[in-house]
């Protein structure tokens, strides 16, 4: 019954992938910015989390809260003083700026922490919540999935029911008209980046608890995020969860049928197929403007 185990792990892993992609999807959906530095920002959060976990003798909740504060500050400063300045200058300058941020961040990490593999120590990795003869559910995988659902639902609630969320969506729809309503759209962009950083901090913690990481791991997660966003549709939160799950299942099914060496390839093949038949993403409507 190995296949059930693979399927189950794929779904739960999808939660982690959704978390990794959510911030990127949010930023793209609101300000049409492809944030190349997204993966590196997640890994920066992972490193901060690791340091904080050591400071607070393994209290991960406290560590992630402090990390969120740090990352919000970093996101706000980057958006306000770098990205906002180039956003209305066409598509290439913002792309180059985020590319520059990406290189800078990964090299700062290399300088401070060295090139060694790290991971955030935790006991969840060794615990199985459910243990039957056919399959088992590991605590850390279940945590990934639950956190993803909680974060996505919270984000959905904020976007639907608060003045802040509505103004974000209005800005995404029509910048000039949002300004006419009294919305400072540049400020909204900065806050959106902060929101993306809150999500990325949590994603960073999960990444560090699940896998080992290096200063250069960011790029890998950037590609996962791209994959999920392409599958799920740009700027669509529910689609992101679905996209994460599809990517997770595709990878683990690939590993099951063809061997572990094919895990990543299988994920990208599914991505390619979806890109061919539904380029707008699974849950997005074709053209809405």
């Amino acid at each position, binding site marked *: 019954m190995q296949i059930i185990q693979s399927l189950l792990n794929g779904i739960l892993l999808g939660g982690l992938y959704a978390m990794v992609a959510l911030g990127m999807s949010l930023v793209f959906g609101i300000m049409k910015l492809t944030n190349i530095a997204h993966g590196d920002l997640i890994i920066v959060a992972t490193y901060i989390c690791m340091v904080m976990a050591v400071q607070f003798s393994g209290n991960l909740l406290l560590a992630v809260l402090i990390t969120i504060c740090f990352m919000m500050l970093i996101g706000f400063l980057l958006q306000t003083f770098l990205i906002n300045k180039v956003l209305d200058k066409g598509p290439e300058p913002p792309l180059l700026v985020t590319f520059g941020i990406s290189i800078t961040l990964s090299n700062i990490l290399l300088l401070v922490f060295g090139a060694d593999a790290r991971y955030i120590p935790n006991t969840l990795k060794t615990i199985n919540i459910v243990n039957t003869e056919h399959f088992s559910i590991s605590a850390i995988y279940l945590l990934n999935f639950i956190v993803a659902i909680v974060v996505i639902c919270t984000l959905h609630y904020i976007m639907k029911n608060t003045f802040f969320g509505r103004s974000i969506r*209005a800005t*995404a*729809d*029509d910048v000039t008209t949002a300004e006419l*309503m009294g919305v400072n*759209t540049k400020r909204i962009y900065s806050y959106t980046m902060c929101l993306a950083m809150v999500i990325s901090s949590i994603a960073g913690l999960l990444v560090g608890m699940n896998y080992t990481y290096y200063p250069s791991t960011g790029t890998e997660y950037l590609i996962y995020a791209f994959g999920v966003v392409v599958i799920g549709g740009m700027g669509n939160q529910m689609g992101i969860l679905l996209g994460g799950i599809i990517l997770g299942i595709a990878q683990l099914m690939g590993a099951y049928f063809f061997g572990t060496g094919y895990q990543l390839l299988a994920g990208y093949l599914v991505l390619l197929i979806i890109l061919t038949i539904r380029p707008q993403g699974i849950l997005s409507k074709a053209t809405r403007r």
Partner: protein
Amino acid sequence: MTNDNVLLAIDKLNVHYRQFQALYDVSVKIKKGSIVSIIGSNGAGKSTLLNTILGINRPTSGSVTFMDQRIDGLPTNRIAAKGLSMSPEGSRVFPNLTVKENLLMGAYIPQARKNKEAMLEKAYDLFPVLKEKSKQEANYLSGGQRQMLAIARAIMAGPKILFCDEISLGLAPVVIKDIYKKIQEINDEGITIVLIEQDVKRSLKYSDYSYVILKGNIVMEGKSSELPVEEVTDAYFGENKYAIY
């Protein structure tokens, strides 16, 4: 016209789009509580004037004074917060927000947020169809309903002055009549209104004072009831009128 009666004064405004000059020394005074129409053909500079007042375009020279404060040079969101509202050309509702969410966006500025529920009721009273459709996305509204939504959204802010950019564009005559009736109701509550129109007769009928704009110049102004339709039409078309007839 005494000075404290003037809500908005535009003085010698010049606006350029790169090399092209869109407005030449435009001066307009808008009295508190009045309905003023700005009449002109396509490309005469009506929308440019409005966009400059609201800070979407920047003037090259001249001033815009609102309640004795210079507002030219301020960013659009700060101008909006001072009580200048606009129903933009082509309605520009937020397509992915529901009707109610669109209206709530209208009450975004701090002083409007406090009594948003009361304003919502008022907007629904003015345009009952919006209440029926309140949970629908604005994307699915008809042209007339979108226009109503844009106007209702603009008054949600509790503005001192409301700019209506071509609110009759592409609508059926019955709908236009209905919308103009509502505009008068809004004016009766003390909100000053600026109408931008292409239709000469309609503009004169629904306004107190009119300006005619041609190729970026104010070529005629006067009380709407005293301006003869023929002369306004001549001014409207300028020397090209025979080419059109």
